[in-house]
């Protein structure tokens, strides 16, 4: 009902149909719309890469101590709220933050070479840090449930671990990976605290613009129009997922 009302309010003015709010949203925030899309897509790609690497290690590694430690390590950010993650990163990625200080004290960086990551890179790092464990959790679970004899057969026939991962394991868990990535995409699109805390400068993400329109101007129609644009992005992600799902079902039915 709330979604329906915001959708109605985005397309109407004094009860009559209008696209005026969208025109205003595009006029004022077209850069931010593009910025949001690029940030979220880049984060999703990086999350996929990290999740495949870690899940692959957990499934195919032959070093028990490495698997045991990795299993304990990767889950921690799952239990951290986005706002706390934003605060953590604000001080960790700053020019005088813990990351740069550690590298300087280890002699890897000179103090003059340090730089702040509190911009779009900070948002991407925070999203990957926070969301990758969720995707790893789902993907590693799916990888653990596949028939290990297929992996062992590939290994016995001389396939490297890298090849086994990409040609045997991943094709069997693509569905799970896609679900996890679509869920992460939608979650990242709705986060307000991270772009607000990590990168305050322009351009920024749509959630910050929506909050600004409401808090500073009480401009609900433009905020609703921005919300509908966000729905559009998530609808595209859902459509890709459903299309893939239907294609797999029809292949299985043949």
């Amino acid at each position, binding site marked *: 009902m709330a979604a329906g009302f915001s959708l109605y309010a985005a397309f109407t003015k004094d009860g009559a149909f209008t696209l005026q709010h969208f025109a205003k949203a595009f006029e004022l925030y077209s850069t931010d719309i593009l910025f949001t899309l690029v940030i979220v897509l880049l984060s999703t790609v990086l999350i996929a890469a990290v999740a495949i690497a870690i899940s692959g290690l957990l499934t195919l590694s032959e070093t028990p101590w490495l698997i045991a430690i*990795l299993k304990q390590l990767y889950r921690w950010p799952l239990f951290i709220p986005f706002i706390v993650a934003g605060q953590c990163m604000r*001080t960790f990625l700053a020019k*005088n933050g*813990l990351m740069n200080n550690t590298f300087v004290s280890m002699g890897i960086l000179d103090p003059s070479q340090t730089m702040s990551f509190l911009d779009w890179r900070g948002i991407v790092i925070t999203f990957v*840090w926070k969301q990758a464990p969720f995707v790893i959790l789902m993907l590693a679970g799916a990888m653990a449930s596949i028939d290990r004899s297929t992996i062992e057969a590939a290994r016995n026939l001389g396939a490297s671990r890298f090849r086994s991962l990409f040609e045997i394991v991943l094709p069997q868990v693509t569905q799970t990976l896609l679900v996890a990535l679509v869920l992460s995409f939608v979650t990242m699109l709705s986060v307000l605290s991270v772009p607000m805390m990590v990168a305050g400068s322009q351009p920024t993400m749509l959630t910050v613009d929506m909050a600004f329109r409401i808090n500073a101007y009480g401009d609900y129609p433009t905020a609703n129009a921005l919300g509908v644009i966000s729905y559009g992005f998530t609808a595209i992600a859902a459509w890709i997922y459903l299309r893939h799902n239907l294609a797999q079902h029809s292949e299985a039915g043949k």
Partner: protein
Amino acid sequence: MTLARSLSGTAMKVVGLGLFAFFIFGPLMNLVLWSVAERWYTPVQAAGDLWHALLGGGVPPHRRCHDLARNECLDRAC
């Protein structure tokens, strides 16, 4: 040769795991450290007051600065 390869493989795994642990726990450790530290002195690698507390007390650096400044003011007044 095999031993050397095995050792270098283990070393790479340890370094990779260390880096991964740093990027997982670094931000969290930083948050905890900042929540208990009074100030952070940029040339110093750890938060000033916490570091002093861990080393067994002593006068925190900023208090020492305040004391020196106050003494200098008193000297000038004299």
